[in-house]
């Protein structure tokens, strides 16, 4: 990668874009070499690489690629800074925190509920209905997932009950925001409060002080026979929950649906220009209803993953803001399933780090927990790229 920078200075056939991406990679490498397993204990190589990244970033900036330029400079600063911090902390501590395969597996665990929630958000918002209520729909799926699995005796029933409950709550949002033309943001806030109250109430009523049973049926992990023996890959994805694979599958299905099928085009057109969509014979109301209900079902799956896939238990307000991170994923991922996958993984990774970091730095862990929220503020501020929502989002539709 360093050669990419070098060649950039020799010949002009390499565009500033290439240099920019190369510089970002250099910044990442600057930190990477200071961490296990490579574990360079001197900060000099990292700082040199960081400076190279910053310099290349400045060069790119001068060629008009602002976003990439600033990205490269940030990568250089963060990479070098992180590496300096790493070289100053004990190698044992670093080994505790940075085990790449375990981090990767944890990233997938944290990313799964975010991904379901974000896909739900994408479907709803692409049809023009803001869905702040993702958090509440997730929480509903969370409770009803474990309730269904407990009563029905099987995680399959749990998932079905969760999907129905999430769909019903989404139906409430749909009735208010589409038929009654309520304000969608206020409606979403209400959905979150309702879900918090109802699941809390039912939890106390049904499970009270004992909590949910320990032996509740859980969504199984998928063990990949051959892959689990490959050194790094085996630890990372050899034994992953079924729901994680389902979420990744859903990303592909949704991406194809939205951008490669007539129905997907219709859904998007309803969100961009409902009047035009109605003119060519689409039912805006019906499309939006279906989209909002689907969003509730998806979000509920994410919630159910938390209770019967990941934890095996439920507590009041178990989602604790994950639905809002899912919202952040939607915005940062620019209302695209692929983008959502990338940002769900990024935020999942920061949660994974945050989970392991307290072994030697509580404050550092907090920083990583706050990352999704801070990054989203930066993104809506338009500092790194513009994220443009569907044009008709938030507007109730009235037929003429």
């Amino acid at each position, binding site marked *: 990668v360093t050669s990419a920078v070098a060649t950039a200075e020799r010949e002009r056939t390499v565009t500033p874009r290439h240099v920019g991406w190369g510089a970002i990679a250099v910044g990442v490498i600057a930190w990477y070499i200071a961490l296990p397993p490579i574990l360079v204990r001197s900060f000099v190589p990292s700082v040199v690489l960081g400076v190279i990244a910053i310099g290349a970033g400045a060069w790119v900036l001068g060629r008009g690629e602002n976003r990439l330029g600033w990205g490269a400079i940030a990568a250089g600063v963060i990479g070098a800074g992180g590496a300096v911090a790493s070289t100053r902390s004990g190698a044992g501590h670093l080994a505790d925190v940075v085990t790449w395969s375990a981090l990767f597996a944890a990233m997938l665990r944290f990313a799964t509920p975010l991904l379901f929630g974000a896909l739900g958000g994408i479907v709803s918002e692409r049809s023009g209905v*803001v869905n*702040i209520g993702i958090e509440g729909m997730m929480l509903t799926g969370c409770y009803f997932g474990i309730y269904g699995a407990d009563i029905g005796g099987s995680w399959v029933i749990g998932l079905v009950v969760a999907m129905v409950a999430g769909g019903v709550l989404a139906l*409430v949002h749909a009735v*208010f925001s589409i038929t*009654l*033309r*309520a*304000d*969608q*943001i*206020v*409606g979403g*806030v*209400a*959905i*979150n*409060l*309702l879900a*918090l*109250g*109802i699941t*809390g*109430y039912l939890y*106390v*009523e049904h499970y009270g002080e004992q909590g949910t049973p320990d032996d509740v049926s859980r969504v199984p992990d998928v063990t990949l026979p051959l892959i689990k023996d490959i050194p790094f890959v085996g630890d990372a994805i050899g034994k992953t929950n079924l729901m994680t694979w389902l979420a990744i599958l859903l990303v592909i299905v949704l991406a194809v649906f939205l951008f490669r099928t007539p129905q997907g085009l219709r859904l998007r057109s309803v969100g*961009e*220009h*409902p*009047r*035009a969509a109605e003119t060519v014979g689409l039912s805006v109301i019906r499309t939006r209803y279906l989209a909002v209900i689907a969003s509730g079902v998806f979000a509920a799956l994410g919630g159910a993953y938390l209770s019967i896939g990941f934890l095996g238990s439920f507590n009041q307000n178990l989602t*604790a803001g994950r639905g*809002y991170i899912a*919202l*952040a994923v939607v*915005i940062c991922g620019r209302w695209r399933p692929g983008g959502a996958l990338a940002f769900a993984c990024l935020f999942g990774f920061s949660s994974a780090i945050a989970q392991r970091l307290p072994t030697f*730095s*509580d*404050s550092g862990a*907090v*920083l990583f*927990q*706050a990352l999704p*929220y*801070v990054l*989203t*503020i930066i*993104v*809506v*501020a*338009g500092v790194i790229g*513009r*994220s*443009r*929502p569907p*044009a*008709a*989002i*938030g*507007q109730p*539709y009235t037929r003429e």
Partner: protein
Amino acid sequence: VSAVDEPLAGGALGEPGPDGGGQTSAARLAAYVQGGGVIVPLLTVLLAFLAGGLVILVTGHNPISTYKAIFNGTGLNWLLPWTSSADRPAAALNLQQTLILTVPLILTGLAVAFAFRCGLFNIGGQGQYLMGSYAAVWAGSSFAGMAHFPHVIVAALAAAFVGALWAGIAGLLKATVGANEVISTIMLNYTAIYVGDYLFGLGGPLQNDAQRSVPVSNDIVPGAKLHVFWGDPELQGLHIGIFVALLALVVFWVVLNRSTTGYEVRAVGLNPEAARSSGMSVGRNYLLVMAVCGFFAGLAGAMDVLGWQFRIATNDIDISQIGFYGIAVALLGRNTAVGTFFAALLFGGLLSGTSQRNLDPTIFEPELASNLTTIIQGLVVLFVSADVLVISILRSGRRLMPWRRSRT
């Protein structure tokens, strides 16, 4: 370049679209959720309580005795002449609790209401409240030698200014690049939680000096505590913060209805384009309004810290909900001063009436009841979101709403 010149810049939810009639969703709210009318809010509350009663009934409890126990828990029976003298001391204690909770609810309610009147939706009251409370606990636990009065003023103002700065981030982003304030304030809420976790958590810069294994702040010094004028200070009597909240209501009303600034704020809220055409700076108003909102919410944090909490533990930060209740208070109070007061009293009563401390557990489990409060809160917000629903129950059509025009 201001927000409204480039309507779609920077992830702006609810900005003008092809069919939107050129209004943001919050601007639409500002136009219809404002001023006047007692019947609609009352009916909203009635519906919410009926639906809550249905939940109680379906789950096999008695709604009437439950609501009666909650009412007694609020201490509002102290105001009834026929309450026996034997019940009066307990009722007084409960009423003090209700009013203590009403203080921050009024202030966070104003933080939301003021933004609404400018066409902004401030979901960030919680974050601004938290940031304010951090500042208050820092200022209140420092400067130990300071005299009582200036110390309280310094701590309260520090809280209000930190709250204003925190909200100002969202206001600045809205004014300069058009960043949607709903998204930025939601994210600032969670960022504020983690700021608190960092400050008061293990090894944090503001963690207490005595017990390094407990993630809690230092106690504020006695000199920074607000004066308790009703009840026993040891039993969380009512502190003078209630007068601060009432004063804030007056200030809110005067600024909004009797000042040029308030006129501009309302004009921007009703129609940003028209306001700009008549020479007002929409962006400047957005920034100013968000800062004022943060000022109110930060002050709420100060009243709680200086009035009865005296310290901040990271656990409390995670479960605090006062700022979110502010949304329901403002919506139910229809963004007016008087409405905000009564809505805050209602939710203050609900919160204290369903608390572990005040509700009779033999009649209804407090833990169930606090969730019931959340349900009622959600229903209120849901019904307000679709005013149409409540209004159509009264009667359909626009004839019922002439007061909306007269108020603006």
